[in-house]
């Protein structure tokens, strides 16, 4: 074979020019130089991938942009969903047509021809306006928030699953008989909610928060309704007080702790049930004992875990009012009833106002979205409202363990094996977490760090509250009302009652657990001797019916006097200090004295009462202490403000600012030196309610109490500390608000905020200057205050007038005219008439829905 010499020469030249090494790694042979078009295509591909990724999956804090922001099915549909107009709707499961009327302010009136349809339609209406809130509430109780918001909620979910709302709801549901009306109501209600979910999905009208968070609501079940009820029980009754007292006992010593945090209140209060009481069958409770190092460490560890949880999971003191006036004391001749439960004030509110009418059920009032029944309201014959009873319903037990008996605890003379329950917690953007909950005979183990501690909580016992509320709604007199409440176990509430025959009553329905041995206000040994052995018999729980005075009242105060033979909780952060109750009692008594008659207008005035009862006791003593003292010009001006003050915490009152600041300084001046010298780790402000009762009592009747002479301060009296606190107050207010005391108005330093439920601050209402404080019937504790009268209702059976209002609106949709439409009227102390369904149907601006099978 011959080779063309020219070709051979070219091959040799190419071989000589070729780089050394294997040919396959040469750059020219491996990657041809990319063309401009290739680069362009690559860039286009990259840009498209980025845009599509952001559109389908979101980026950083942004949700999936496509589904979230497109104008047809995304969050913008909130504008369309906010429109409410007359329409006919077809709902699966309805038996007969149902009429729904919506007043111009959003109040709903449902008229059904069967009870089943009434509850189904209620579920539909709730979900139509509050589905996201309902989903949030059930997720909170079921420990499934992490599934939609990620690991930020994992501690909260773990805690909820440990505590056991889900287990309790499942147990409750399993115990309801198949033909029980409450079971049928819950099932019908669930069907109505699910009808709305189906409708909203098909019409792209799910609440925008679902779209933005990128998930669809699961079908509603009756257990979800029981979970929502459990959420409320937890908020009102699950307390950490024994953990607090244990740490205070350890650091202050048993003698000071028992003196400063007594079982019975040291101050003068106004119990509504003065006795006489039947003798108790239990032994008296023991005195305070010294807490051990191990107990204090375990309490501190668990306490720090609980305090790290979001607000609302642990009850931190209550504040609600209710009262009633008998017909013979009322201007109209009929009984009067007023109720304003004080809760965390949110947008949307916890309440949804409606009237429910069917052959077997007629009631008007407020319900909690997620539950099928009216909680507070009236029917044709009776009206009722409630406040939290505040008795102790949470007990902590230290389980005795031994390494020789793994996974066991010692109880009643034998080693018992913990039961365990496993949960999977889905976490958005992370792996599913597994949680194993150990359960002793006392309840779930809540911590195993140091001392294994379990919790006995009344909220973990089945309580057929839905059935009770159904029977209350159907009751026509006191007997039916009281009998229904026999089955109400938790949370314990003060149910006030007034009927169309002029009768009034008040009963603290629910479990009052009995512990026959030990110190229940501290964590107790779990070996069996200190267990909860039962509850106070129903006939012996606090209650009154038609008292001779013609007035009854409750405001979270201890319901009974010191003669009551049972332990029901200590004065330290279980019960309210009693100032609101004292003020209400005072106003009702004075108005009713000498043949005076009370009216519905008086009830409304009292609900907006800003008089601070504690101030009315202490300020005169303070002025006496300042008499003859050399004061600066500003101090003199501040003193003069107090001299002419009516003790009302109004926004234009400068004296109110002086008083509030003084009381905090007085508390601080008395107790902070002790806190420092005894190295108390509990934030002193956490126990201000208890310390305030002490300070009030000592100021009025024991001015030389040893508490004033704390380590490092020398011998002092109340007068010394008051003078010093007053000076501190004036200095502080001058620095903050200027030297002109007349401008130190309460509205400059005290505000209220209605917080968005999803914690979106841009959707809050306020902060806005607000009257009231923690001690006034118009409750506004904290600054900014985030809780207060969440619903105000005044009933006058003589005039058959029913008026009410709540701060917020019926819709959770911030684009709706009904998102916050009632706030201003509520703020100004106004009420709206609670119309009947018939009146509402013909009212101006009413919208009507015809619900068809």
């Amino acid at each position, binding site marked *: 074979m011959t080779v063309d010499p020219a070709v051979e020469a070219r091959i040799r030249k190419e071989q000589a020019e070729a780089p050394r090494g294997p040919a396959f790694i040469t750059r020219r042979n491996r990657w041809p130089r990319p063309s401009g078009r290739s680069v362009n295509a690559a860039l286009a591909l990259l840009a498209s991938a980025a845009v599509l990724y952001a559109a389908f999956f979101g980026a950083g804090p942004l949700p999936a942009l496509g589904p979230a922001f497109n*104008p047809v099915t995304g969050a913008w549909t909130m504008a369309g969903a906010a429109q409410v107009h007359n329409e006919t709707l077809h709902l699966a499961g309805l038996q007969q047509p149902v009429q729904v009327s919506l007043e111009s302010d959003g109040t709903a009136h449902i008229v059904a021809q069967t009870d089943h349809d009434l509850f189904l339609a209620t579920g539909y209406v709730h979900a139509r306006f509050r589905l996201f809130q309902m989903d949030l509430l059930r997720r909170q109780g079921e420990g499934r928030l992490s599934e939609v918001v990620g690991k930020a909620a994992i501690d909260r979910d773990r805690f909820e699953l440990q505590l056991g709302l889900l287990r309790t709801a499942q147990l409750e549901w399993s115990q309801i008989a198949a033909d029980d009306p409450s079971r049928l109501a819950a099932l019908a209600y669930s069907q109505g909610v699910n009808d709305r979910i189906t409708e909203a999905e098909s019409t792209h009208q799910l609440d925008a928060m679902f779209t933005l968070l990128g998930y669809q609501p699961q079908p509603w079940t009756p257990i979800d309704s029981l979970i929502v009820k459990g959420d409320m029980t937890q908020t009102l009754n699950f307390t950490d007080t024994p953990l607090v007292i244990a740490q205070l006992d350890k650091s202050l010593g048993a003698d000071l702790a028992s003196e400063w945090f007594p079982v019975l209140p040291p101050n003068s209060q106004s119990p509504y049930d003065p006795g006489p009481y039947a003798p108790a069958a239990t032994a008296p409770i023991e005195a305070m004992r010294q807490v051990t190092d191990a107990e204090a460490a375990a309490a501190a560890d668990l306490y720090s875990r609980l305090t790290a949880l979001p607000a609302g999971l642990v009850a931190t003191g209550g504040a609600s009012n209710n009262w009633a006036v008998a017909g013979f004391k009322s201007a109209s001749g009929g009984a009067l009833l007023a109720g304003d439960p004080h809760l965390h004030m949110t947008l949307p509110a916890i309440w949804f106002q409606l009237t429910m009418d069917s052959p077997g059920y007629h009631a008007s009032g407020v319900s909690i979205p997620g539950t099928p029944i009216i909680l507070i309201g009236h029917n044709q014959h009776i009206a009722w409202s409630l406040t939290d009873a505040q008795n102790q319903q949470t007990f902590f037990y230290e389980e005795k363990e031994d390494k020789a008996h793994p996974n066991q605890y010692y109880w009643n003379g034998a080693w018992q094996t913990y039961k365990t329950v496993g949960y999977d917690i889905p976490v958005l953007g992370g792996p599913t977490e597994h949680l194993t909950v150990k359960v002793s005979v006392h309840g779930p183990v809540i911590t195993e760090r140091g001392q294994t501690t379990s919790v006995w909580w009344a909220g973990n016992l089945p309580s057929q509250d839905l059935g009770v509320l159904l029977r209350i709604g159907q009751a026509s007199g006191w007997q039916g009302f009281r009998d229904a409440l026999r089955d109400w176990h938790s949370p314990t509430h003060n149910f006030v009652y007034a009927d169309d025959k002029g009768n009034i009553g008040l009963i603290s329905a629910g479990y009052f657990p009995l512990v026959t041995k030990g110190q229940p206000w501290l964590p107790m040994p779990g070996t069996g001797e200190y267990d909860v052995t039962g509850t106070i018999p129903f006939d012996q729980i606090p209650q009154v019916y038609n008292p001779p005075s013609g007035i009854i009242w409750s405001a979270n105060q201890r319901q009974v006097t010191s003669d009551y033979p049972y332990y029901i909780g200590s004065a330290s952060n279980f019960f309210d200090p009693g100032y609101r109750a004292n003020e209400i009692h005072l106003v009702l008594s004075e108005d009713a004295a000498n043949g005076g008659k009370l009216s519905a207008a008086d009830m409304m005035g009292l609900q907006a009462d800003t008089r601070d009862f504690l101030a009315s006791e202490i300020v005169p003593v303070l002025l006496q202490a300042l008499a003859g003292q050399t004061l600066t010009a500003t101090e003199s001006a501040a003193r003069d403000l107090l001299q002419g003050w009516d003790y009302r915490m109004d926004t234009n009152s400068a004296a109110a600012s002086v008083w509030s600041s003084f009381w905090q300084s007085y508390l601080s001046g008395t107790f902070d030196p002790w806190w420092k010298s005894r190295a108390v780790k509990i934030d002193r402000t956490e126990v201000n309610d208890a310390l305030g009762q002490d300070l009030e009592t000592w100021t009025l009747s024991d001015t030389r109490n040893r508490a004033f002479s704390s380590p490092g301060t020398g011998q002092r009296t109340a007068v010394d500390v008051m003078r010093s606190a007053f000076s501190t107050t004036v200095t502080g207010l001058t620095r903050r608000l200027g030297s002109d005391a007349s401008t130190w108005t309460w509205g400059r330093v005290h505000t209220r905020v209605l917080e968005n439920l999803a914690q979106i601050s841009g959707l809050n209402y306020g902060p806005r200057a607000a009257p009231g404080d923690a001690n006034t019937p118009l409750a506004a504790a904290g600054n900014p205050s985030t809780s207060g009268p969440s619903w105000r209702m005044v009933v006058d059976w003589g005039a058959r007038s029913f008026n009410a209002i709540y701060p917020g609106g019926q819709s959770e949709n911030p684009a709706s005219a009904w998102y916050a439409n009632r706030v201003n009227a509520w703020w100004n102390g106004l009420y709206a008439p609670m119309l009947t369904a018939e009146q509402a149907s013909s009212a101006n601006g009413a919208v009507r829905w015809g619900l068809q099978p």
Partner: protein
Amino acid sequence: MRVAAVFVAGVLLALGGVYLGAWWAPFIVGLAIGVAEPRSRFALPIGAIAGLASWGAMLGAAHLRYGLGLAASSLAAIMGFGNQRLIPVVLTLVVGLLLGLTGAWLGSAGRNLMAERQPAISR
């Protein structure tokens, strides 16, 4: 004439898709525009306009029907922009525009790349 036809068809298809709930339609339509119109200086603006017009028209229609002021304020608040109600509006329009634009870019670039490769394959 061809450019005008592509423009009209593109906008109508994107509008129809979005109207029917297919929010991603502008990207697909943009892709088709890029393939159909070889000159990227035309294809890209047409794709962008189709995306913008489809999402924008639906937004405008919703505004005319319901008024979007409160919804825009609410979305701005949810996004952490206080009361800057224009931000969600602009964001919405930008997303629509980008879907159409990137679709058209990818279509156009792909077509041109294929055209470049075509002779090599036949050779």
